[in-house]
């Protein structure tokens, strides 16, 4: 009797009619009723970096204000590069455009080169992760090639493509592809045998296996690779554009250096840093969105 009662009780507890667990929303009441707490939180996030930036600007101003200083102080940067800072999208002719346009031109190159690297890298990485022989053959070659600095590829790329733009794209591609390949391969190698068994019992063909099991299962690894890759391609594009010319943030810096416009260079550096940061966060956010739920099993 007691056993029976216990069983029934357990049935009640495990009964499907029970609504799912309620997820606590701790932030909501506090933000609605306690504006001071919210203000404190914002302040604690914004104030420390603001103070540090201010301190850097002050030290910089103090260090570069003497008449013989080789670099311009922040006030001079502000006054001389005012146009560049406040009007990123002016357009006064083919070589006289705002930094926003130049950044977009560079981003376009990165998008093409990195996009290709992502697709090819995931495919090769999947092959290496899946096949022991492909790994044995390709891995040593890749381990050596990936240490070649991006710009070392440029002369070869210029010779092969006989044009600067495809050469720059190739440099981006070859820079970004290695972390994508290596991380994808590790991710594919770490796919649990259980998932492979499920795929085998369902007789998934290789294409179905790739899209339905491999890519989602390895997605956290793939996105780690993509995130490293986009960072590297942003590093490489600036250097490559300095050498290949054309519209782009890298060439702008080179041009500014040749015409001794140091404030412009400093503004461009800030742009590059901010955009690189946003690219990193963008890929991380996409990864977090795509791989939600995959970590827990």
């Amino acid at each position, binding site marked *: 009797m007691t056993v029976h009662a216990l*069983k029934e009780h357990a049935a009640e507890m*495990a009964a499907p009619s029970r609504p799912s667990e309620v997820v606590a929303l701790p932030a909501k009441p506090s933000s609605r009723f306690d504006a001071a707490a919210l203000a404190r939180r914002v302040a604690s996030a914004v104030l420390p970096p603001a103070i540090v930036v201010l301190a850097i600007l002050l030290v910089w101003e103090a260090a570069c204000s003497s008449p013989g200083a080789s670099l311009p102080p922040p006030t001079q940067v502000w006054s001389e590069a005012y146009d560049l800072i406040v009007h990123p999208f002016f357009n006064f002719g083919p070589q006289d455009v705002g930094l926003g346009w130049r950044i977009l031109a560079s981003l376009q190159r990165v998008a093409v080169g990195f996009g290709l690297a992502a697709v090819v890298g995931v495919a090769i990485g999947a092959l290496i992760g899946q096949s022991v022989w492909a790994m044995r053959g390709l891995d040593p070659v890749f381990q050596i090639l990936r240490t070649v600095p991006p710009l070392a590829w440029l002369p070869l790329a210029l010779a092969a493509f006989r044009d600067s733009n495809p050469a720059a794209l190739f440099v981006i591609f070859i820079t970004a592809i290695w972390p994508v390949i290596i991380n994808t391969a590790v991710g594919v190698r770490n796919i649990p045998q259980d*998932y492979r068994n499920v795929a*085998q*019992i369902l*007789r998934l063909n290789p294409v179905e296996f790739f899209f339905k099991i491999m890519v989602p299962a390895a997605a956290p690894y793939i996105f780690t690779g993509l995130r490293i890759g986009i960072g590297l391609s942003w590093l490489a594009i600036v250097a490559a554009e300095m050498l290949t010319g054309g519209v782009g943030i890298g060439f702008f810096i080179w041009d500014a250096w040749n015409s001794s416009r140091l404030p412009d260079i400093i503004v461009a550096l800030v742009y590059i840093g901010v955009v690189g940061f946003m690219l990193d966060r963008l890929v991380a956010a996409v990864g977090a969105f795509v791989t939600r739920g995959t970590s827990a*099993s």
Partner: protein
Amino acid sequence: MKPYLKLDHIDKSFTRGGTRTEVLKGITLGIDQGEFVSIIGHSGCGKSTLLNLIAGLTKVSAGAVLLEDKEVDSPGPERAVVFQNHSLLPWLTVYENVNLAVAKVFGSTRTRAERHDWIMRNLDLVQMAHASDKRPAEISGGMKQRVGIARALSMEPKILLLDEPFGALDALTRAHLQDAVMDIHARLGNTMIMITHDVDEAVLLSDRIVMMTNGPAARIGEVLDVPLDRPRKRVELASDRTYLRCREAVLKFLYERHRFVEAAE
């Protein structure tokens, strides 16, 4: 009458680093359609290997697995497996996990609406239709295993293979799932083979219990018939003479004649 599934003189050995380990030796067994057979033995005796051989996930070293007189040596949906750790894909919802199987097996023979109905019917069968939009991480271990069973059943398998399906669950949840499996077996009449190391579970669920000797080179030590009427009620059986006799027979086999020796390896 020829058996539905026939294991014909199966040997299995693994070779690693030049040393050959015999896992199974001379396994011969016939299983009839609609029968529920448990395979019980101490851990390491190769019972999971035996299930993988039937599933086709591992290849036999000698002998053959015959299903309806045809040899099977690769995995397929007609021998669906319920895995010990459920093996649901964590990035898919409950519905999508079952759909993965249904879309693959019935993608060309059934319409979209028919497939949807079939998925929901199978989720209903394990009482999980209410959670169809949840991801595996959001449901309990017992629920995951229910979904695993629904996924396997949705393939309309000729034989359902259960690999210690309730091993990782607490006792109460396990009892619920055992009842659910008995109910499904009664309703659908599937042929089922279950690996277990739980004596009560084996006696409660099975028509026959296959007892394995200890490895290496494990064989079938004894096959016990469980002549209990269905439907079976666990509370009534607790004092049933036949039940107790079967239970005692399995216990004696496992703990007297083939006691697990830790130092055997």
